[in-house]
């Protein structure tokens, strides 16, 4: 059994989001092969935790993917592939999988399962992932707040082409209001990223 | 009290006689005559020719109006004329006529702002209490709301007037000017069905039409039979775009702009009434759109028919008489006219 956190997005209460985090994973190659074979039993979004900045980052992409799928506007095959696609700043699906998906050598994984039907329950997801992911399941917290813990902020910044505020000699950012207020870097990044993924493709 | 009104700021000369019965009874229209100078298709009306037209008709119309009103000259209390805004030569012709009868009959003069004439007539006819007014004609495009003794302009065109835009497009398509180009464009538009993309230029509460006219003129060049089939303008379904489609697209676009800025003004001043005045206000599609918007805001749209929304003498008589009743007259020396005369320059002494 894996520790699965089930979250409901405001406004989409009938579609719970099941989130699970693993470390020391040894069979990433197997999981990836199941995705490539489009095995219906492995309909998950397997994400690289180093690319996930925060819960809102993950949930923002999830909301957009779910919304697009429910309105039949998805650009990819499944709602889960749509999630991987939505996280990426441009429209290249392969690139999205390379950047946000897992590789054969991944040792850490965030697994997301959208509750699109009544058969998808916390228990079933927990059981299935526990059986097939070889690694240690980690508690993501009440509100999945630990989802951003393994983030590589530099990598994320690069993918979204965000400038590093520290390199700007303090001219921008918090300085504009005249107060040398310390900015929460991650929060600033998250704010921009949510906007970028919302705007993408339009 | 009885007033005679002389209007001639553009290509119509209008003579009206109105009576304001004592107390709060509604005004009575005793006569409302008009004659329009119509230029050939593809041409607009030139100021000089228009002035000649007005001079030729003014005496005849005044005589006829007084006769129709069943009034004696001695019954008339005041002579009202359009001071502006409008085209110089036709304004001058009519102001001259007003001065002449003022001296002949020994009656006071009141110079009236043409736009205020439209607004007051619209209010009188529709009984709209305090509406946001959309004033749309060949020379004007304004969104107006009353506040503290002035009709204040909330939004307006930044370049040409909407009626001018429609008239000029009619010329491009060689649509006849009789009875007036806007009417014919409206009939064409009723038969159009394909919406062609045109620029949409709203900035705050202001609008601009010159870019749209230029774009529409360009498109008009692509629907002519002289153009080879392959290069003809087509709809997404592959239908050939017609004159009717272009008229339809032009109307849908520019009217939507007008309704949008009007709605913004209504939200700003917090009213749900809207009144459309001016010649373009006779367009049924514009009236429908305005009504839909007003209903959506829980209010209602008001408009007058072509007797009152197209330039006429009765509105000048009515607004002039309202002003006269507050004790204002225009002395002979001051009885000039002016091409530029903003709506908000008039002190509205007759409203609370």
């Amino acid at each position, binding site marked *: 059994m894996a520790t699965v956190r089930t979250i409901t997005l405001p406004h989409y209460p009938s579609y719970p989001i099941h989130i699970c985090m693993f470390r020391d994973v040894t069979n990433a190659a197997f999981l990836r092969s199941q995705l490539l074979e489009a095995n219906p039993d492995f309909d998950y979004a397997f994400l690289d935790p180093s690319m996930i900045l925060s819960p809102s980052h993950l949930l923002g992409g999830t*909301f957009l993917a779910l919304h697009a799928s429910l309105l039949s506007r998805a650009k990819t095959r499944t709602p889960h592939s749509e999630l991987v696609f939505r996280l990426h700043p441009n429209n290249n699906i392969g690139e999205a999988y390379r950047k946000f998906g897992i590789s054969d050598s991944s040792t850490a994984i965030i697994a997301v399962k959208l509750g699109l039907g009544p058969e998808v329950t916390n228990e079933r997801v927990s059981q299935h992932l526990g059986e097939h992911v070889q690694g240690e399941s980690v508690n993501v917290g009440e509100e999945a707040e630990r989802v951003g813990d393994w983030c590589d902020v530099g990598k994320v910044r690069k993918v979204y082409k965000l400038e590093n505020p520290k390199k700007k000699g303090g001219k921008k*950012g918090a300085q504009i*209001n005249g107060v040398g207020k310390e900015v929460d870097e991650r929060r600033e990044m998250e704010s921009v990223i949510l906007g970028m993924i919302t705007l993408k493709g339009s | 009290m009885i007033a005679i009104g002389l209007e001639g700021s553009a290509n119509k000369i209008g003579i009206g006689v109105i009576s304001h019965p004592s107390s709060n009874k509604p005004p009575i229209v005793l006569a409302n005559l008009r004659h329009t100078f119509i230029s050939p298709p593809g041409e607009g009306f030139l100021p000089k020719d228009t002035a000649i037209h007005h001079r030729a008709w003014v005496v005849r119309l005044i005589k006829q109006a007084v006769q129709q009103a069943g009034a004696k000259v001695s019954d008339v209390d005041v002579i009202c004329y359009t001071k502006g805004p409008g*085209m110089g030569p036709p304004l001058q012709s009519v102001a001259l006529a007003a001065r002449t009868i003022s001296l002949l009959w020994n009656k006071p003069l009141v110079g009236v702002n043409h736009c205020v004439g439209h607004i007051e007539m619209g209010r009188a006819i529709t009984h709209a209490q305090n509406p946001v007014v959309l004033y749309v004609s060949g020379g004007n495009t304004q969104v107006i709301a009353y506040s503290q003794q002035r009709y204040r302009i909330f939004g307006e065109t930044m370049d040409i007037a909407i009626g001018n835009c429609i008239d000029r497009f009619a010329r491009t398509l060689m649509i006849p000017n009789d009875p007036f180009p806007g009417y014919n464009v409206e009939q064409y538009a009723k038969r159009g069905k394909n919406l062609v993309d045109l620029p949409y230029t709203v900035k*705050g509460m202001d609008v601009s039409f010159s870019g749209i006219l230029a774009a529409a003129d360009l498109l008009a060049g692509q629907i002519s039979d002289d153009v080879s089939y392959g290069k003809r303008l087509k709809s997404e379904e592959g239908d050939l775009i017609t004159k009717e489609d272009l008229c339809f697209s032009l109307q849908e676009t520019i009217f*939507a702009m007008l*309704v949008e800025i009007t709605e913004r003004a209504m939200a700003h001043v917090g009213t749900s009434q809207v009144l459309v005045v001016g010649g373009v206000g006779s367009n049924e599609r514009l009236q429908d759109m305005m009504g839909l918007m007003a209903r959506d805001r829980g209010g209602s749209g008001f408009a007058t028919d072509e007797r009152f929304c197209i330039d006429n003498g009765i509105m000048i008589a009515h607004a002039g008489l309202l002003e006269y009743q507050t004790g204002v007259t225009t002395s002979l020396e001051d009885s000039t006219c002016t*091409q530029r005369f903003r709506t908000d320059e008039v002190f509205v002494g007759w409203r609370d």
Partner: protein
Amino acid sequence: MSTTNMASTASDAQPPTTPPPTQPLHALPQPFTTSNLEVLTQGAEALVYKTTFLTPSTPCVLKYRPPKLYRHPILDKRLTKARLLAEARVLVKCRREGLSVPAVLGGDWESGWLVLEWIGGRTVRAVLDEWVHKFGLRARDGKTSEEEVKRELDEGLMEVVAEEKESQEAREGLMRLMQMVGRAVGKLHEIGVCHGDLTTSNLMLRTPERKEVVGRGPPRMTVSAQREAAMSGQDPPEVIPVQQEETKETNSLEGDVVMIDFGLATQTIHEEDRAVDLYVLERAFTATHPAAEHLFQEVLRCYGESFKGAKTVLKRLADVRLRGRKRTMIG
């Protein structure tokens, strides 16, 4: 769009079901329902609601541009989409450049909605109104004639305000606020954006918040009832309650300035557009109170120093003032 058959036959004669005129019907776009929305404003353009997004503890603003029935459906879609996108693009651009504006959290252009970060605090308009109110009382106490009061307001208000230590602090706080406003507008213009509707109601003084790391802990934005009052156009309350946890260190003028409502914003570097932004703001200040003009001078001073080219915008502002917004038109 539903297609209605204009020529209905006698057999299927049903009275047309038109919505009652006083109750405009706006079906909310999926996934929103009225149950979890609180109406903030019903403008001409958009319906604005308060709700939550992504997590139940993340307050946000939902902006919905309902279809305009009067517009041709194709034109309506085109405009709604273009405007929402323009607004979202400007906001993201601003955030990228480090400006204080609401973040874009989500949106759907086809359906006509946009979700923005909630900004807690008060509008600058509310701050000014409160200041005028306080000062008005103070001036009236010792004065007899209306004229004297007026002159006092026009000329010597700063001295009068500065009579007491408390007032001194208030004055400094106000000046700091004006400086922040000037710099914020300057920064906006510098990055090539003009707001298009820069009134004091579209400037927020954001309540200071406690530091938190993204992804941890309780709600991130402070929620303020002041905001709702300001947005719905009600009079601001006279006493401004301060966040309880922060009573010690926070006076009501602390915080940073956030620009909101970019519905009419454009990406432009034209001096004229920039000058008009300032002109609109100036009029909003003077509409609050004639005395607020003094404060606005400080806004302009800081604006002038905020970026290269700001000085020429100030020169252009003088032209715009003279001309007014309205031109004399040929009839």
